């Protein structure tokens, strides 16, 4: 394993630990601030500084991990499950069904992802879960395309034909041979989408469609810090840096999965 990949895994494991046991990493309260300590620059006392009401920014980032990560998980799960099922169906059935599904996917792909997510939010209403579902639906098209192309490839292999030759029925062969052998690149895309979803959820949070204040969701943190951009750079830069690190790490891990297979 190369150094970059090890670092990427370390980043992901660290933020996962933040989400699971935030108390281990910080003793400060993410919601209740100490007004006397407002807008302090990063230092030994407050690693990421404090915001306008004296809340420790590092504590808010650590406690915010669970919101951003679970949102990303839901988004990826929605995209992965819906997309793979549709791709499997289209790729293995072929014919009219394939054509219809793929043309719908073409339409979805022609709409910018964020716009699509915003449209879905307007239909579902704002909120953490709805934002995640919206981002997930925005990524379904990519999953359908990839999984369909894999299914079409695997369906042409000798071992799938041999499975039919062994008396296998269509759904059994699909489940036992086609699906497992098609999943490799799809898993790699899921890892990549994880980073993309964090970014999209943060963006939507920043725009005010996601979590309500004072939830320390990462996008919301950056949005709140925007008002102090001129005087207190750390309020936007440090949470932003965390988002960038996680997205880069997810992309690096995705590349390694794509290369070696899961």
């Amino acid at each position, binding site marked *: 394993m190369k150094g970059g990949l090890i670092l990427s895994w370390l980043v992901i494991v660290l933020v996962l630990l933040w989400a699971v046991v935030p108390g281990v990493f910080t003793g400060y309260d993410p919601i209740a601030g100490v007004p006397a300590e407002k807008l302090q620059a990063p230092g030994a006392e407050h690693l990421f500084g404090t915001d306008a009401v004296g809340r420790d920014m590092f504590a808010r980032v650590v406690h915010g991990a669970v919101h951003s990560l679970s949102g990303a998980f839901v988004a990826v799960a929605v995209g992965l499950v819906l997309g793979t099922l549709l791709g499997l169906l289209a790729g293995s059935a072929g014919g009219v069904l394939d054509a219809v599904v793929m043309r719908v996917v073409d339409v979805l792909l022609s709409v910018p992802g964020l716009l699509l997510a915003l449209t879905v939010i307007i239909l579902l209403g704002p909120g953490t879960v709805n934002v995640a579902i919206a981002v997930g639906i925005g990524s379904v098209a990519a999953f359908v395309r990839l999984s369909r192309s894999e299914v079409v490839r695997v369906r042409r292999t000798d*071992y799938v034909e*041999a499975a039919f*030759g062994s008396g296998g029925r269509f759904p059994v062969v699909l489940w036992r041979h086609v699906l497992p*052998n098609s999943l490799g690149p799809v898993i790699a895309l899921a890892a990549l989408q994880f980073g993309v979803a964090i970014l999209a959820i943060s963006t939507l949070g920043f725009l005010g469609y996601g979590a309500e204040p004072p939830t320390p969701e990462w996008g919301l943190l950056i949005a709140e810090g925007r008002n102090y951009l001129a005087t207190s750079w750390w309020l936007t830069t440090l949470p932003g840096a965390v988002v960038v690190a996680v997205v880069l790490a997810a992309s690096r891990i995705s590349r390694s999965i794509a290369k070696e297979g899961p």
Partner: protein
Amino acid sequence: MSLLDVRDIAVSYDGRRAVEGISFTVEPGEVVAVVGESGSGKTTTAHAIIGLLPRNASLDAGQILLGENDLATWSARRMESVRGAQIGLIPQDPSNSLDPVKTIGAQIGEVLRIHKRGDRGTIRRRVVELLARVGLPDPQARARQYPHELSGGMRQRVLIAIAIALEPRLIIADEPTSALDVTVQRRILDLVDDLRAEFGTAVLLVTHDLGVAASRSDRLVVMKDGRVEEQGTTREVMSAPAAEYTKRLLGDAPALSARPFKDAAAAEPAIVVRDLVKEFRVGRSSFLAVDGASFEVPRGTTHALVGESGSGKTTTARMVVRFTEPTSGTVSIAGAPDDRRFRRHVQLVYQNPYGSLDPRQSIADIVEEPLRNFRLGDRATRRARVGELLDRVALSRDLLTRRPRELSGGQRQRVAIARALAAGPEVIVLDEAVSALDVTVQAQILDLLEQLQRDLGLTYLFISHDLAVVRQISHTVSVMNRGRIVESGTTRQVFTEPRHEYTRELLAAIPEPVR
């Protein structure tokens, strides 16, 4: 002094020794054949000589003397002046070795341009000359064509033209004909022979095919597991092999064994094929892949369908196992039901044992699959049956938990055969089932197939391009050419008294080990 003198070279991949203590010489104008099975290190040796080892390989020891120069000590940059000019290479796979986006003329011209042989006009004239020399009709038109417009044999001729462009003193031919049909193979080997006679070029022929090596070389170097087992003049090695391994190799090579013909038994037919036609549509036009094929296979015997690529033999096989619908005509298999249970009765074994086993499943799961599909027995009896099947194909039960990629080619083909046997079929269609295997492994699989036929009374339809293998295993033969069966009969008749011109041409193309 020898033209090429390889002394005690050793090559390792990622620190693991692959080839060790290889020494041999090539005299001017001589053909030396390096023979061995896959993994014997023959290609590694060839690549070491021409300085084209992959990046994870290193030449650890030894000298490679080309005339006075020791190539082993030369830098990659300096080797560039040798490649093409002094040593030409004919690569293995004609379909992968040409650049698909450049014309044939540009690719031959490239080697002349790199070594600065004349201006553009001279190079263009020389390219046409070379194409004519390697026997391509209408060379001027060929020079303007792209690789995909040429057949496999024509592409191999282009690669030969590139190899001889600078009239090197030595040509390394790495399996130059393995990907070609037998009649094409023969013409290509004849061409290499002619060029050698004309220019006095020495040839280092790397091949797995003992028949080709024996019929075309002056001296033989037999390799196994990265070492030289035996070397000497071809006549000596062929008539009195010293090493145990060479003896086995000679015994296993179907082209060289003189087993008696099998006589067809008089039994009721298990497979009856009548006027089978398959038409494929390509855009608006269509062509007949199979054009009125008819044959019968008596129960418990082997019928071979022989032909070159594009002859329609695989399409016929696929119609017999009902993977392809015939356009017209019938296939009837005695006792086979018409529904899904047909697959309990008729099984197909594929050419490529790497592609026909699901890479994610264990060997036990793969062999058990037909039993599960047909709900034969409960879990425990199925597992017991899988164990028996593995015994039948002479595989250790330790392999049950392994994945296909951990197995050798021969072992994988045994697994494929075990799977085919699982549901107790009566007819097995073998589509080039031994073609991808080394000769010693091939001989073992053929023995296994014969034994299974004796024990279980199986009927085989054996698809092959390899006449030597067909001669050994089949009772009756049909020869196919361009979708038609041109000749049918017992193996003895077809091989000893061929009536059709095409059959005679095929038989003449089998490499004869006499020189």
